[in-house]
């Protein structure tokens, strides 16, 4: 039996054929055992699927689920995208004088491997960094963002726990990192010691207060020192 005929048998079963063609296929099924067997197999699958899908239930509370939607509606911001990606291009910009932090992170599977969880957040929104034009950013939460409790199960997913994993990345990709910062004037003063330090491959560590922050509810205290160098 030709492959085209197999597809036509399927189309016949789905009611997608014109009456004349449908009659031809009905005849084929009557006369050809292979066609009959195929139609039976397709029928079995169709019947199985008619049972419906396994239900998937949200475990977030009504209020919490809605509050996340409402916040974004109120903000009138573009829709968030779940992290879909694979490229590593990450920069952390610091503005010590303002006491603010902004991040733009895309991650690369070659570097991070397959982490168990992904998500997307808007650094600009959460951290209010004035230098970043990107309205949102992808932040991959993986093994280096361990769950901690902040009173809400789902918030807990997004808590930072260890920033130290950032350090080897910055060291290994310093040229790219510097370029990224350079394209974003304001995110880091190009003449600052911070920038020079990063250009020379220096690492920086985020203060513990940030590492304890839940970025959904922003329960963090401004750090006395935004950056300390190794």
């Amino acid at each position, binding site marked *: 039996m030709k*492959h085209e005929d*197999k*597809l036509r048998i*399927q*189309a016949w079963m*789905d009611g*997608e054929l014109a009456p004349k063609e449908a009659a031809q296929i009905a005849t084929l099924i009557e006369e050809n055992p*292979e066609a009959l*067997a*195929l139609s*039976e*197999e*397709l029928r*079995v*699958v*169709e*019947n*199985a*699927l*008619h*049972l*419906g*899908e*396994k*239900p*998937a*239930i*949200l475990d*977030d509370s*009504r209020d919490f*689920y*809605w509050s*996340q*939607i*409402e916040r*974004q*509606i109120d903000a009138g911001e573009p*829709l*968030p*995208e*779940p*992290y*879909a*990606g*694979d*490229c590593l291009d990450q920069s952390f910009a610091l503005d010590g004088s303002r006491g603010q932090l902004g991040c733009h992170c895309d991650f690369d599977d070659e570097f991070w491997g397959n982490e168990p*969880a*992904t*998500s*997307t957040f808007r650094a600009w929104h959460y951290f209010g960094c004035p230098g970043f034009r990107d309205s949102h950013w992808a932040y991959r939460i993986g093994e280096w963002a361990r769950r901690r409790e902040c009173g809400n199960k789902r918030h807990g*997913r997004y808590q930072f726990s260890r920033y130290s994993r950032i350090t080897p990345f910055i060291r290994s990709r310093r040229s790219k990192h510097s370029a990224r910062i350079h394209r974003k004037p304001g995110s880091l003063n190009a003449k600052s010691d911070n920038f020079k330090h990063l250009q020379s491959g220096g690492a920086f560590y985020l203060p513990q207060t940030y590492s304890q922050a839940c970025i959904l509810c922003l329960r963090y205290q401004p750090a006395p020192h935004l950056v300390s160098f190794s």
Partner: protein
Amino acid sequence: MAKKLDIPNADDEALVRAAQRGAMPPYEELVHRHRDKIYARAFSMLRNEEEALDLSQGAWIKGWQRLKQFKHNSSFTTWMTRICINLCLDFLRKRKRKQTDSLDQIEEESGGVERRMPVEEFNPTENVEREELRSQIDDAMVKLSYEHRTVLILHEFERLEYKEIAKAMHCSIGTVMSRLFYARRKLANLLISLKKERHK
């Protein structure tokens, strides 16, 4: 004086009309009523809880932004489900573009072994409990590529016609037919394997 809407007891249409006038509480009620369905659709397509959660919320935000465009030609849930499906498809397309084609993927795309697979006369659904079968189907769906899974979902669960699926997936009707065919055959094959495994 206009009668105040009894939100918890109002039907979807009344809530949608109120929300279209800019009232947020009726929309919140709609979200509450249908959030599981929208999440379930996102999850069935993405097979990842967090992504499904983000996208289902994204669908509700988009729904609000476009609510005035809803003309009541279909049910509100159908309309919302379409939004969710479109978001999922966009997301999956973006992810796919970023992946390098491997030989496996090329094989998968072209139908792979299912093209040459003989027709099985063994019925994998015979004597299987309803819930067990559902669970088996779920397991098998996970193993399908997103293109194959999506055509099955759109056709079998959302009851879309070939041309509607082609439009949603940005491909030809021929491609839809091929994908659907291979998806069904692969599903049949997976169900058979699962059943044989359990019989051992």
